[in-house]
């Protein structure tokens, strides 16, 4: 039983295609995230990393292909069946995406109160506890998101992502827009929370230092397809010119920057 369960990837994308107008963003993307792994997908801006995540979450609908979560197809689910799948997920958005009409603790407790109908006082206790996990004291709970710095907002976003104890967490550019020290603090937090919770994670980033730190596997997305993937330790000896150019940040190489998105 457990052996069979372990063989099923936590999340799997097969031949996923998505286009906006005439621009093809995902061109038959295949990717699987084994249970318990921390996969980081790297790739340039505008290569469809965010689109890929939004397809898995059902925020965007792919034109073709299939998406599986725990071996069940979820590509076309909607309504309460989609909600049931989404309960397995936590997501940290690029700009944290905190609700600025709600205080910090209600942001963290949002999924518990609205999604699961938990009483507010109990949800608040859990929110304060999750804030402590990301290194924020109870006094932060009463602040408003607009009163926080970018790094603090990311922490609150992380607390919100883990509040409902998800099985899978997505990180969208977790370190973008932060200074190098705060970026590393967030990286450490991600590593320790992932270890504590034993979750499967998928992160997208173009910050190689962050990718090395928070991943167990790395995949590279280029022109709508995964062109390389493997254990993080192997990225420096992949022999893949696209990956080499990207991780060393060279202007010269097979990847040409497109001016128009």
């Amino acid at each position, binding site marked *: 039983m457990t052996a069979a369960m372990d063989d099923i990837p936590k999340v799997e994308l097969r031949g996923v295609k998505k286009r906006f107008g005439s621009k093809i963003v995902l061109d038959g993307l295949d990717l699987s995230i084994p249970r318990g792994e921390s996969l980081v997908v790297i790739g340039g801006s505008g290569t469809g990393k965010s689109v890929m995540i939004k397809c898995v979450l059902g925020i965007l609908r792919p034109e073709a292909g299939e998406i599986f979560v725990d071996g069940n197809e979820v590509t076309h689910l909607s309504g309460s069946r989609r909600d049931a799948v*989404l309960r397995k997920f936590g*997501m940290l958005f690029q700009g944290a995406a*905190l609700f600025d009409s709600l205080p910090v603790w209600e942001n963290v407790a949002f999924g518990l109160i609205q999604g699961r109908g938990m009483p507010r006082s109990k949800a608040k206790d859990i929110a304060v506890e999750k804030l402590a996990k990301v290194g924020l004291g109870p006094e932060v709970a009463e602040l408003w998101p607009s009163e926080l710095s970018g790094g603090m907002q990311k922490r609150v976003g992380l607390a919100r992502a883990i509040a409902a104890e998800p099985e899978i967490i997505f990180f969208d550019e977790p370190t973008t827009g932060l200074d190098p020290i705060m970026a590393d603090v967030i990286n450490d937090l991600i590593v320790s929370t992932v270890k504590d919770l034993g979750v499967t994670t998928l992160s997208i980033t173009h910050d190689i230092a962050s990718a090395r730190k928070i991943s167990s596997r790395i995949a590279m997305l280029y022109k709508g397809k995964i062109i390389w993937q493997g254990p993080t330790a192997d990225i420096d000896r992949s022999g893949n010119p696209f990956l080499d150019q990207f991780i060393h940040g060279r202007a010269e190489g097979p990847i040409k920057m497109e001016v128009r998105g």
Partner: protein
Amino acid sequence: MNFLAAIGRTFLSFLAQTGRLTVFTFSALVNCVRPPIYWYLIGQQMLRIGYFSLPVVGLTAFFTGGALALQIYVGGNRFGAEAVVPNIVVLGITRELGPVIAGLMVAGRVAAAIAAEIGTMRVTEQIDALTTLSTNPIRYLVVPRLIAAVVTMPVLVLIADAIGVFGGYVVATESLGFNGAIYIKNTLDFVTRGDVTSGVIKVAVFGFIIALMGCYNGFHSKGGAQGVGAATTNAVVTSSILILAANYFLTSILFSR
């Protein structure tokens, strides 16, 4: 050929836009009757849409009533019928100007605010965040605004009617030499329940238009600050045009009763 292609493109984008709006409206209406209903949010929006619009709507209604009294006096004077001022003021305010003024003022105030708020939530991914937290954004954001607008606009217009008539009364008694008691008696004798209800029905529809256009434009905004700005402008322009168009059609339907 390019000219024809341009016409075709415009037409196609118009159709796509209409389709999107129809789907959006339908989904909003379906979610209005599906639990959970967020009562707290409805209350909050009623305050923002209705209560905080009172000063703006009240002031404009007062001045409109006053100007109306002056115009009718001038017009009536040409055939010796100055005495109709109270009658026409109350008719004009309750049936037409009260609802339209309230509709347009609230469109400027509220449709813009809704579009800016929801548009900002869209471009900062807060709407996607709602979805990932198992909360339907239509139900959480759109439904409370729609319900609050449809419920509070009629109350707002009743107050606007009273203030508009009062504006006419002040001008008529202060500068046109009308007797206050007779003015009020003429007003109350003349106005019918139908005058008031037709205005109330109209303004409920306007409330729906305002909230819908604010939410729709906010929901579909993209591209950062500029996109939110465009959404806000579109929300005010489209809701104002739709209000005036709906006003004509509703009037022609209610008039024939």
